[in-house]
C-alpha cells in the first residue's frame, strides 16, 4: 500500500513541478488572491474580535447578594415552589464508581425570597423602595454591615450607605415621600431614617417594612423575587437558562450577575452582523476568481490532458496533479497572507496584532474558511477533467456535468404503448418544443441502425446538461414526427423484446 502510494506520487511529481513552473503567473495570481482574501478577512476579523471579545473585559459584572432577581410583571404572582432546573453543568468524576466519566448536574434553586417594590417621590428624586419581611434570608444575612437598625416600624426607612454621602443624610432624619395609588391620587407621608448599610453589592435600594410597602402601593403580593442557588456560578449555558426563566416567569425581567456580559454579547452580535456578511462576500469573491482561473487553465490544456489520458494516466493521478498544483500555490498564498497581515498590522494599522492565541486562532479559522471556498472553486474543473473522455477533451465544445442517455421513452402515452405492442416497434421521444426539434438528429429516416448507435443528442443549460438518444437494438428508423418528437424504430429481429413499463397495469378491469 505504502509503496504504491510512493510510486503514485513519484509518477506525478515531475509533471506537477513542470506544470507549476509553466503556469507560474496564473497560479501566482491564485496565490495572490488567496493572500489578499486572507489579509482582508484576518484584519477585519481581528478588528471585530477586538471590538467584541476584548472589550468584554471592560464590562463589570454585577455584584449581587442573590443569584437572580426577577422583576415580576403587573398581576403576576410570585412563585412558591421551584421544581424547575435553571441549567446543568458538567464535571468529571474523580473518585468512586463513576470515575473518569462526565457527570451532568442540574442547577436548582435552594432558596427564594420576596420583596415588594414601590416607586416614591422623595427629596432624592424618584426612587424605588423595597418592602422586605424581617425574616428575609437575603437582606437580613450577615454580609450586610449596617449602622442603626433594619426598619421595624411603619415609619422606618433604611438607606444604602451611598445615599448618605450623596445627600448628606443622618440617622433619625425625616424624609417626606409621596406615592401614587393606581388611580393616580397622591398621598404624602413622612418617614424617619432608621439605619444605613451596605453589602458591597450593586443595585441596592432603600428599604421599608413589608407592611409599609403594602400600604403605599395598595398591593398585597410582592413584585420582586430573589433566587439563590449554590451552584449558580457554574452556569454557562445562558440560552437554556433564559428558556427556563421564560417558562417560570413569562414576560418578566430577570437580573443576574452575568447580565451585563450577556447583554453586551447580544449587542455586539447585532452590531457586527453586517460585518459577517462582508467577510462572506470576500470569500465568495475569492471563490469566483479562483474558479475563473482554474477553469481557464483547464480549458487551455484540454488537448494536453487528452494526451496524458491516452498514454495511460489514471483519473486519480490527473485530478491529484491538477488539485495539488492549485493547492500548493494556495498554501503559498496563505503564507503570503500571513506575512501581509503581520506587515500591515505592524506598520500601517496602529493596533498591532499580538502573537497571542487569538492571532493563531484567527488565522486558523479564516484559513479553514478560505480552504473550504477554495476547494469549492477548484472542484468544477477537477470534475470536468475526471469525467471527460479523451474524445470530449479533444473535440467537444462543452463538457457536460450531467449526462442523460435514453434508449426508450421514459413514460409513453397509452396510444404509443398500444402501437408498440401491436406493430412490434420501439420508440424514442426526442425533445421538441412548439413543433421544432431542439435535439440534433444524426440519422435519417430509413437508415439502418446498430445497437447503441447515437441517433440524436442535445446540449442544454449552457452546456452543463447533455442528453443523448441511442438505438436500443439493431434495426431501421421507420418514421419521425417533428410535431411531437416521436421516433419509431423497427427492430431487425422479430424476437426483440418491447420494454415493459411497470407503471402501467395491463390486462383486466377490476371491480371496485
Amino acid at each position, binding site marked *: 500500500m505504502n509503496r504504491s502510494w510512493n510510486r503514485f506520487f513519484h509518477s506525478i511529481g515531475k509533471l506537477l513541478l513542470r506544470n507549476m513552473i509553466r503556469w507560474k503567473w496564473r497560479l501566482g495570481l491564485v496565490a495572490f488572491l488567496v493572500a489578499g482574501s486572507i489579509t482582508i478577512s484576518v484584519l477585519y476579523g481581528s478588528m471585530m474580535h477586538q471590538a467584541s471579545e476584548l472589550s468584554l473585559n471592560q464590562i463589570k459584572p454585577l455584584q449581587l447578594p442573590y443569584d437572580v432577581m426577577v422583576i415580576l410583571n403587573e398581576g403576576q404572582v410570585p412563585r412558591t415552589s421551584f421544581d424547575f432546573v435553571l441549567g446543568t453543568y458538567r464535571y468529571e468524576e474523580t473518585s468512586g464508581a463513576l470515575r473518569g466519566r462526565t457527570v451532568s448536574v442540574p442547577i436548582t434553586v435552594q432558596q427564594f425570597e420576596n420583596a415588594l417594590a414601590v416607586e416614591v417621590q422623595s427629596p432624592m428624586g424618584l426612587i424605588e423602595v423595597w418592602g422586605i419581611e424581617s425574616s428575609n434570608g437575603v437582606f437580613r444575612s450577615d454580609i450586610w454591615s449596617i449602622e442603626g437598625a433594619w426598619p421595624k416600624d411603619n415609619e422606618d426607612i433604611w438607606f444604602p450607605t451611598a445615599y448618605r454621602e450623596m445627600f448628606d443624610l443622618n440617622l433619625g432624619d425625616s424624609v417626606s415621600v409621596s406615592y401614587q395609588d393606581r388611580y393616580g391620587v397622591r398621598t404624602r407621608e413622612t418617614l424617619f431614617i432608621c439605619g444605613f448599610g451596605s453589602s458591597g453589592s450593586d443595585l441596592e435600594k432603600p428599604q421599608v417594612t413589608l407592611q409599609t410597602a403594602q400600604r403605599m402601593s395598595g398591593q398585597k403580593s410582592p413584585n420582586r423575587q430573589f433566587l439563590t442557588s449554590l451552584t449558580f456560578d457554574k452556569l454557562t449555558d445562558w440560552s437554556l437558562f433564559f428558556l427556563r426563566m421564560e417558562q417560570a416567569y413569562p414576560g418578566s425581567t430577570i437580573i443576574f450577575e452575568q447580565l451585563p456580559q450577556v447583554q453586551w454579547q447580544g449587542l455586539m452580535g447585532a452590531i457586527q452582523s453586517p460585518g459577517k456578511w462582508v467577510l462572506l462576500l470576500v470569500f465568495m469573491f475569492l471563490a469566483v476568481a479562483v474558479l475563473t482561473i482554474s477553469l481557464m487553465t483547464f*480549458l487551455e490544456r484540454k488537448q494536453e490532458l487528452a494526451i496524458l489520458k491516452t498514454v495511460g494516466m489514471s483519473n486519480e493521478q490527473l485530478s491529484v496533479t491538477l488539485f495539488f498544483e492549485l493547492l500548493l500555490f494556495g498554501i503559498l498564498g496563505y503564507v503570503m497572507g500571513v506575512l501581509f497581515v503581520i506587515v500591515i498590522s505592524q506598520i500601517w494599522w496602529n493596533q498591532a496584532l499580538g502573537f497571542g492565541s487569538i492571532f493563531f486562532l484567527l488565522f486558523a479559522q479564516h484559513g479553514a474558511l478560505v480552504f473550504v471556498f477554495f476547494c469549492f472553486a477548484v472542484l468544477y474543473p477537477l470534475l470536468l477533467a475526471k469525467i471527460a473522455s479523451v474524445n470530449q477533451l479533444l473535440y467537444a465544445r462543452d463538457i457536460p456535468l450531467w449526462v442523460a442517455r435514453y434508449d426508450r421513452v421514459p413514460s409513453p402515452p397509452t396510444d404509443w404503448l398500444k402501437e408498440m405492442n401491436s406493430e412490434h416497434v420501439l420508440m424514442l421521444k426526442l425533445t421538441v418544443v412548439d413543433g421544432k426539434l431542439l435535439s440534433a438528429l444524426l440519422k435519417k429516416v430509413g437508415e439502418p441502425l446498430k445497437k447503441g448507435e447515437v441517433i440524436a443528442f442535445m446540449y442544454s443549460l449552457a452546456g452543463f446538461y447533455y442528453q443523448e438518444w441511442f438505438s436500443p437494438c439493431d434495426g431501421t428508423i421507420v418514421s419521425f414526427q417533428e410535431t411531437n418528437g416521436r421516433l419509431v424504430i423497427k427492430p431487425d429481429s422479430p424476437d426483440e423484446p418491447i420494454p415493459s413499463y411497470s407503471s402501467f397495469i395491463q390486462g383486466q378491469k377490476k371491480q371496485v
Partner: protein
Amino acid sequence: MFIRLGFQNAWRNLSRSILAIVSMAFAAAFLTYVISLGKGYANQAGQPLRSMLGGEIVVYSEKITAETPTECSSWSYRQGELDPFTDMEYLFPNMKSTGYLREDNQPGFTKEELKQLSSFDEINGIHPLYRLPAETVKVVDPEQSSPPLPEHLLRIQDDGSVLGPEISYSSGLQGRDWRTNQEYSLGHYITNGRWFEEKDEEDFVGVVSSLQQLPQWVHVPLPGEKITLEIPSFRWIQGAWQPDYSETHRFEIEIIGNVTVQSRTVDYIAGIDGWVTEPVYAYFNEIYIPQGAWNQIWSVVAGGLVYVPSEVLLQVDDLTFLQDIVFDLQSQFPQFSIIDIPHQLERVHANLSLEPVVPMGARSALQDRKEQLNQGVLASDLRLPIALLVLINAALLVAANILILVAERKKEIAVLKAIGARESEIIRMVLAEAILVSGVGALLGFSLIRVQAFLNQWTNALGLLPLIWLLFLDLVMILGMTLFAAILFGWIPAKKYASLSVMEVLRNE
C-alpha cells in the same frame, strides 16, 4: 473595424461575456459599497421624530449606546434612574426595567464641548433639549366623570361641596423656540388650536399631544383649558440635576393647541381584505411651552442656577451626508452617544414605545420585525486598507476574465494575423472587448448599489446639480478603477498573444 470585431466577439460568446459582466458587477458593487460616500437619507426620513426633538442628530452626554468602543473604557450595568432631562424616558421606557449598559466616566457637556459641537463642519444649528420632569395635576369633576368616581376618592369640603380627587401623572415639560424652521416645529402636526407665535414668547401657554397615555378619569386637555403642573425643585449634585420632590412648585398653563403625530404606516394582511395600510400614531405626554416661559419656570425651580443640558440636538442642511457626519462626530467625541434620527427612529419603532396602540393585525407583523439595537456602524480605521485590498482583488478578477477571453481565441488571433492584422490592431480588439465587458459590469454593479441612494438624495435640499456632480464623482471613481484594471490587465495577455508568431500557434493545433 477591429474595435467592432471586439464587440462582436463579446456578443458571440454571450454566456461567457455575461459571466464576466456578472463578476465585474459583483466587484463594482463591492467597491461602490466601500467607497461611496453619500449613502444618503431621503428628505422626509424620520420627520416625526425630527419635529418632536428639533434636530437631525441626537447627542446624549452619557454614553449608553455601544458603538464599537475605540477608547479603553469601562462599562457597567444600570437599572432604573433614566436621566429625566433627556427624551430617553419616553423614547426608551423599557430601559428602565430591563436596565442598560453605560460607560462609567460620563463628564456631561461642558461649555467648550457645546461650542465645539456647534462649530463642527456641516452642523448648521445646535439645540439643547430644554426638558424637565413634571407632573400634571388634574382635579376631577365628580359631576362629569364617567365611569362615576368611587366614593372613597371624593373629598367633602367644609362648606359641604364635593370635590373630586387630585389625580397626577408624569409628563415632560419641553421649552421650544417659536423661531425655528418649520421642519423643527410641530406646527404642521397641529390638529386643534395653533402652534406658538411670536407673541407667546413669555406666556404660559402649552401644546400637548392629542394622544396620551393617561390614568382613568383624566382626558386630554383641549385648547382653552388650563392645566396645573407640579414641578420639583432641582439641585446640582455630583454633576447631575437631582429633583427634590419634597419641595414642589405649581404652575398653571393654558393649552393652545393639540398635535397628532403619525409616526408611520403599517401594511399587513387582514383576513379577506388582503393588504391593509393603516397609520400608526405616536402617544406621548410631553407638554411644549415657549422657550421664554420655560426659562422663567427653570429659574424658579432651580433657584437661579444655569441650565446644563444632558441632551443636544444638532441640525444639518440635508440628510445626504448624515451618516458620515455622525461617524466623524463619534470619532471626535467618543465620550458621547451620537445617533442620527433615522437610526433613532428605527430603535424607537423596534420597541414600540411611542406606539402603544397599533392595529391588531399589524402588531404581530411589527413584532416580527423587532430587532435589537441596529447600529450598523461599520469598522472605523480599516476602511481605507479594506477598500484598497478589495480593489486589488477586483483588478485580479478583471485580469482573470480577460485572460480567459484572450486564451480562448488564440487560434482566431493567429488567423487574423495570418490575413494581415497588425499587432496593435489585435490589442485594440481585445481591449475593446475587455472594456466593454468590464464597463457594462461596473455600471451594473454601480447602479445596483447607488440608485436607491440617488433617489433618496433627490428629495434633499442639495439641489440637482451638486447631486449629479456627487453621482458623477462616484461613477468616475468606480469606472476609472475598473477600466484602469481592465486596460492594464487586459493589455498584458493581449500583447502576449498578439506577439505570438502565426506559425507557432497554428502548428500546435
